[in-house]
């Protein structure tokens, strides 16, 4: 009989190890090169997302260093306008599409969410793996283009008509548009996986009002992705059609409209900011709770804030378009919405203060990064209040003031929490704790360097330096401030190097972690570090919001899941009652092949429309291979109405 027996007290150790052995055999991922491409386990894919995204953070960072070097003195001839435009476009596109979303949403989400839910794997693991390969495909296209002097040079927003066929001949803007399609499909795929995991794979007992805040945030982000990303796919898709087959969506001479593009782009673009920031807030809530040694204060207000932020994020896009000359009253509606979105973020800040205030603070590394986040994001959020105001925005829009603002928001809201998250889950992912001394060096170098660079940019903006200029004249008197700003880069680079040293050293010689080195409450800390391929020996049940803190030692576990096939438990979306059992489809090479076929079709379509009719059958073949039922089920399962 394949059903796991309930564990008896006397035989506990033998029972456990037999079960562990069987589960390990059933859930094993294939080895070797072929196996690497067939792997569909969420912990592996999640780490791949993170590592790949981190590589692109470093590449994007190198571009940032180039930008700061070029601007360090007036009329610098280090890089000319053509390369400079490619560099800043690549910097923005890489950081947003290849780093921030894949790291903060996909990476952390794919790794942590199923563990926090108490699931054996993510829902639709093959779609999840497919999304990863597609993301890599998009990244290779973009960087391949850049390294062959075909990097996009029209800004990460690619406004028409500059990016249209008349003013950007060649394939540079095509590469940008297609990269968008790659990364958006990838984000959408992961959003479906994560939302389904959260709604259906939660451990029994983890009702809606007991879901950890991180799961709430990931759910809201997934839905925001599902509603926002189609807008940018439409925008970049129509742009591509204008460029490749001669449609006229954005051509004013033929009834097209240039503002239409901006509406579509920013209808995605602003929710995108929250898609990047909310995962950071989720990490902060988790870390603050753990290192304050008390349950987070204001669970309900935080949940309300997160959901409200997700909604309101869709109503503020016009504040990127204040300078286009829309009617004043219309713009004021968006001023109102942009100011109101401060409230939910404020509420989250107040709840974090209250949690620390009434807790017992342990200033370990992840918490240190959270304090960095508080300081940096606070400044970014406050300067955002200025940008919400139409008159002030009309002055500082498209200046270095805005550059300063959104680096405070995005580095503050994503990079600082990212490091908090990496140091926090590093023990779970690797089994070892990262070194604290090096971590502190990393923090202070990065924090100081960051503030030197980006606080200075506020003044440059106030004194009229526009964005995206490759050089400036000595008579503008911007060189002093620019030199100061560029000097901070040295510290930030040093900080990142210390981090890399820390990771590689701690991987080999770090203190071993055990199951739960921080004494945290999440279910992800209940298994060994790193987690076994089946995650949980027994699918747990949950009796409170902080499972490992609230649950008694004899908290029931789920039994009756088969251990000879990859059986998972599906529960009710709201009440998390067990509903039925599902079978994980297991490892497969097809998602990788499908992503190769899709990538080939996408890239080919830049050069010839024939790529679509030629590529489509390949895509269909791979998708059928992916979805075709393989092998008979071990036992015929009756089709029952549940």
């Amino acid at each position, binding site marked *: 009989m394949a059903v796991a027996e309930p564990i008896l007290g006397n035989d506990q150790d033998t029972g456990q190890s037999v079960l562990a052995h069987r589960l390990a055999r059933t859930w094993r991922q294939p080895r070797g090169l072929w196996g690497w491409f067939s792997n569909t386990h969420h912990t592996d894919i999640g780490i791949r997302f993170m590592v790949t995204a981190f590589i692109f953070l470093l590449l994007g960072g190198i571009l940032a260093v180039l930008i700061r070097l070029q601007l360090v003195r007036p009329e610098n001839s280090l890089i000319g306008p053509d390369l400079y435009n490619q560099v800043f476009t690549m910097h923005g596109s890489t950081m947003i599409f290849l780093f921030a979303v894949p790291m903060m949403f996909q990476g952390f989400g794919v790794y942590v969410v199923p563990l926090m839910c108490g699931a054996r794997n993510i829902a639709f693991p093959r779609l999840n793996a497919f999304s990863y390969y597609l993301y890599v495909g998009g990244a290779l296209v973009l960087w391949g283009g850049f390294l062959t002097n075909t990097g996009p040079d029209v800004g990460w927003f690619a406004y028409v008509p500059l990016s249209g066929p008349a003013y950007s001949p060649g394939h540079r803007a095509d590469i940008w548009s297609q990269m968008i399609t790659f990364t958006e499909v990838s984000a959408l795929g992961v959003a479906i996986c994560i939302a389904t995991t959260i709604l259906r794979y939660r451990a029994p007992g983890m009702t809606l009002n007991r879901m950890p805040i991180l799961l709430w945030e990931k759910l809201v982000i997934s839905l925001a992705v599902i509603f926002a990303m189609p807008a940018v796919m439409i925008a970049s898709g129509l742009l591509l059609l204008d460029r490749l087959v001669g449609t006229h969506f954005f051509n*004013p001479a033929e009834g097209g409209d240039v503002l239409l593009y901006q509406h579509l782009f920013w209808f995605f673009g602003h929710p995108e900011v929250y898609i990047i920031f909310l995962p950071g807030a989720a990490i902060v809530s988790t870390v603050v709770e753990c290192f304050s040694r008390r349950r987070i204060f204001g669970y309900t*207000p935080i949940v309300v804030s997160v959901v409200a932020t997700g909604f309101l994020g869709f109503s503020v896009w016009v504040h990127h378009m204040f300078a286009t*000359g829309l009617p004043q009253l219309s713009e004021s509606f968006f001023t109102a919405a942009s100011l109101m979105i401060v409230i939910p973020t404020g*509420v989250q800040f107040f709840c974090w203060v209250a949690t620390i205030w009434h807790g017992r603070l*342990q200033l370990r590394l992840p918490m240190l990064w959270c304090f960095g986040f508080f300081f940096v994001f606070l400044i970014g959020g406050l300067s955002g209040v200025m940008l919400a105001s139409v008159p002030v925005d009309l002055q500082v829009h498209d200046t270095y003031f805005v550059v300063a603002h959104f680096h405070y928001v995005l580095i503050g809201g994503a990079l600082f929490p990212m490091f908090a998250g990496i140091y926090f889950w590093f023990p779970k992912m690797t089994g070892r704790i990262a070194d604290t001394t090096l971590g502190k060096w990393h923090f202070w170098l990065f924090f100081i360097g960051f503030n030197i660079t980006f606080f200075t940019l506020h003044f440059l903006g106030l004194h009229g330096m526009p964005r995206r200029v490759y050089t400036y004249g000595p008579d503008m008197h911007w060189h002093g401030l620019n030199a100061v700003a560029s000097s901070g880069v040295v510290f930030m680079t040093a900080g990142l190097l210390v981090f890399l040293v820390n990771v590689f050293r701690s991987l080999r010689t770090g203190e071993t972690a055990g199951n739960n080195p921080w004494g945290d409450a999440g279910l992800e800390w209940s298994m060994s570090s790193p987690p076994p391929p089946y995650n949980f020996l027994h699918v747990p049940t949950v009796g409170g919001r902080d499972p490992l803190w609230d649950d008694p030692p004899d908290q029931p576990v789920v039994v009756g899941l088969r251990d000879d096939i990859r059986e998972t438990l599906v529960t009710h979306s709201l009440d998390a009652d067990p509903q039925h059992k599902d079978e994980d489809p297991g490892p497969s090479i097809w998602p990788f092949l499908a992503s190769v076929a899709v990538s080939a079709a996408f890239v080919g379509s830049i050069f010839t429309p024939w790529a679509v009719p030629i590529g489509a059958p390949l895509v269909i073949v791979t998708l059928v291979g992916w979805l075709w039922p393989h092998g008979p089920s071990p036992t015929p399962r009756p089709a029952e109405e549940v």
Partner: protein
Amino acid sequence: MNVVGNSALHMLLAQAAVLHLDRHSILHPAAPQAGHIEWLYWFIFWILLAVFVLMIGAFSRAAGKTRVAVSHPLPVMEKDEIADRRAGWGVGLATGITVITLFVVLVFSVITGKRVEGLTSKDPVTIQITGHQWWWEVTYPNPQADQTVTTANEIHVPVGTPVVVLTSSKDVIHSFWAPNITGKRDLLPGYSSAFWFEIEKPGIYHGQCAEFCGLQHAHMGFSIVAEPVDEFKAWEQQQLKIAAEPSTSEAVRGREVFLTHACLMCHTIRGTDAGSRLGPDLTHVASRNMIAAETLPNTAGALAGWIVDPQRIKPGTAMSPNPLAPDDLQAVVAYLQSLH
């Protein structure tokens, strides 16, 4: 997290920087429009500074008060009803204050917006600005075609008179921005829009394209010359004249060179055969302070360098290199410098 030091630094840097940068600065308004915005900026700034100090204070206090220096995980604190209730009051109060503050900012922002846009007049100076990659075409439209002034990159306005700017673009999106005067306005192909300003202090104010518009976005400056009404009228009358007849033999030869080379393919000099509108109108080019959209001073050397190899100075510009013989070049420069 040195709050006081930070704000002091802000003030200090702002003070130090303003001394040099007042020709192109948000914080040195020369028109009531920019003045209202500057007032609003500082109004919001002081509110935000207070919020910043309070928040950082709260975080520091919370951290200082409860920090314990042990590395092993401490036991989790029991639920504390009293602490939770106090925290509830604190969070509620802070949220309430936030909401009120934001409404105050909202009201003042909208009122300021109304003031900035509130200027109208029955008898304004009308200026049509058309964006090109990468220069500004400036016309002062008049129902009588021969009374229309056309120039480029240098905008003359009378002090103390309302000015309405009509915007359009010939190619991509540009954004017209003179920080000392008022907020920016995008020039969108397919759209035209209007905004108003009125300059109080005579002077030359700098402006620049603020919307990324391609290779030479960095070299798309302009200047606004605000002068007393009579000087403006005199300038306007001068601009309405057709090009001056060259008075020296070198200038006469220069005109001939101009009209027999590529120059006339793109430029207009009223009173000659050159009538193309692709590039800036050069009828009174010598009256302008700068050339190539505020890239070079209007001197003989700069003009010569620009004519021979504009692609070296402004890579990507629509003007092609003109490998003229040295004496031809000298003659053209002399001619252009005679066009006052």
